């Protein structure tokens, strides 16, 4: 089986903390895998290891069959990333930021295409030519979504991506993820939002103290069961 994302005994240890202990994870194309867990459970560490932002203490992360540590640039051609708090160049407009990050990813879009991406991400038309310094967090998040979508990556790594989005925008984002998933994009999303995980996820994984303690297909659980399962792990 060709996994688009794979972690093999992935371990990250800091001098005073074990951030991730022996993570084994396989994600297929088109799958939306939601990582649930409290702060410090290891969700962001997992995403950072797949991005190559930090080096594993042992084990290996693979993107599209390539080991992250050995191919730090190549794997990023296949990854798009939306952090919890998208930060952009404040003196550039939303349009200019999208143009810059798309160009860095190797895509040269016409202005109409860039406007289209921003429109589909939900950024109001009046904001696209305003400096990002004047944007709200939600508006920046939408530009971040446009940057990720415009990259046409095989994998989306999302770290609390709906943080700062209003319910309508969150809902639109969920629809977008469903659409991208249907097109074969794999998604690894770290979130606290159990209901969003149930809504868009194909599988959920619960992390606690750096360990992936449970993995379930979302189809096998309703939202309340998932919440109960999550709370059980958290209280134990």
């Amino acid at each position, binding site marked *: 089986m060709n996994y688009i994302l794979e972690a093999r005994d992935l371990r990250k240890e800091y001098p005073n903390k074990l951030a991730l202990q022996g993570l084994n994870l396989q994600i297929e194309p088109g799958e939306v895998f939601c990582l649930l867990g409290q702060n410090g459970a290891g969700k962001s560490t997992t995403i950072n290891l797949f991005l190559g*932002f930090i080096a594993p203490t042992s084990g290996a992360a693979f993107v599209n069959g390539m080991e992250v540590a050995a191919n730090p640039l190549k794997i990023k051609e296949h990854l798009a990333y939306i952090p919890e708090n998208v*930060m952009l160049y404040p003196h550039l407009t939303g349009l200019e930021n999208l143009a810059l990050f798309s160009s860095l990813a190797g895509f040269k879009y016409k202005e109409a295409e860039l406007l289209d991406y921003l429109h589909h991400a939900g950024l109001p038309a009046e904001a696209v030519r305003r400096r990002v310094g004047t944007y709200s967090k939600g508006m920046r998040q939408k530009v971040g979504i446009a940057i990720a979508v415009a990259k046409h990556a095989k994998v989306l790594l999302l770290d609390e991506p709906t943080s700062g989005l209003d319910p309508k925008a969150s809902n639109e984002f969920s629809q977008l993820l469903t659409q991208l998933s249907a097109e074969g994009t794999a998604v690894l999303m770290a979130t606290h939002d159990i209901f969003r995980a149930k809504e868009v996820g194909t599988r959920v994984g619960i992390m606690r103290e750096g360990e992936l303690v449970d993995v379930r297909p979302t189809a096998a659980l309703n939202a309340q069961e998932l919440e109960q399962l999550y709370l059980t792990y958290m209280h134990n």
Partner: protein
Amino acid sequence: MRIFWLLFSYEWRHFRAAKGLVLLCALLLLTGLYGIYYGTTEMERQRQHLTTLPELSRRNVEELKVKFPGPADAGDIGYYHTTYAVHHPDAWAALSLGQRDINPYYVKLRLLGLQNQLYATDNTNPMKVLSGNFDLAFVLVYLFPLLIIALSFNLLSSEREEGILTLLLAQPVSPGVVVGAKLAFRLAVVLGLAWLLSVVGMLWAQVPLDGRVLTWLGLSTLYCLFWFGVALVITALQRTSAFNAVALLGVWLLLVVLVPSLLNLGVAAAHPVPQGIELTIKQREEIHAGWDRPKTQTMNRFFALYPQWRDTATIRERFVWRWYYAFQHLGDLAVAKQAAAYANGLQQRYDLVEKLNLLSPAINAQSSLNALAGTDLPTHLKFQRSATAYHDALRAFYYPFLFRKVEFTHADYAREPTHTFTSQPELSTALRGLGKLLLSVGVVFAAGLLLLRARPINPR
């Protein structure tokens, strides 16, 4: 390369948006222009002053011709006649004044003892000397590093602190290319300014277009590169902008202020030189004692040096010029050791600084620019030796008149030796400085790259 140029072009947009930095660059440009104005004005003032000296000499001769209308005793002429040893600046001196403000650029000479004349200078405002020269070399050596620090202290840290770096490095972009593009843009801004000011300075000062143009540009380029290398090392530590700013300013303070001061103290302790005042006092005492000493004793000491005049008539008069000039001459000889020790001591200090200036590229750059402009200490010492030789020539011209009792006629004024000395660049020193700067640049860039390799850039 596509990514590099893309990031480079966006750096221009980021730079334009940072109004403070644009203003700082404009301010430095104006400061540099003022430095060029200051240097060229100062050199013009010195040149103007030097052009008046032959006229002063000519008037002095006219006055003497009136005072002594017929053939005169050469002793009178030697006593009253003033001539000058002049140190003409090279055109490059306007860009790097070096020691031309503290050392005399002409020496007023009579046939009297040389040493007290050699060190007699015009009074200078000590506060002005303390603050140093505000020439182009000063702007390049002392102020440009501050611009480099202002442009580079947050090379990556600002984007990390603003959270942009995570999104940037999530793209297929090498962190090395990001750092390289940022450094290259800043380097282009700084070198653009440095080269623009240098070219304006060269045109303004009307320097000859020879190999020194490239040497000057090479020195300023390598010096700026050194500071960018320091910025790279600090950036590679991946600390906060505040830490970087303090660290870079600390390095500036260390290399531009502390090391030169400590080096100055160390070199002064390693090579003590006799105080000039001691030399002057001893010479004066020797000369004044000459009045009371038996004339035969004075003349015998003098004849030991100049046996060719031994057969001249024994002095029986109360005063004769040849005796007067003999004890003036002996006054110089009495302090010859101190004078040589003083000049040697200065040269040794300079040589030691030359050996140790690898510790501070600021000193190295400054001394190299001074050497290139012919405004350094060795050039001044050469001028002093040239003035000494000129005084010897004056003595050689007047002594036959004095000892053979030949009268000095108006026609003899024209036969009197004259002096001129023009600074020559110390090219070997400048090229050595270039090599040392290259080494310094290599060291800091190697350290920065090794650090970056050892600690991959963390976007958070």
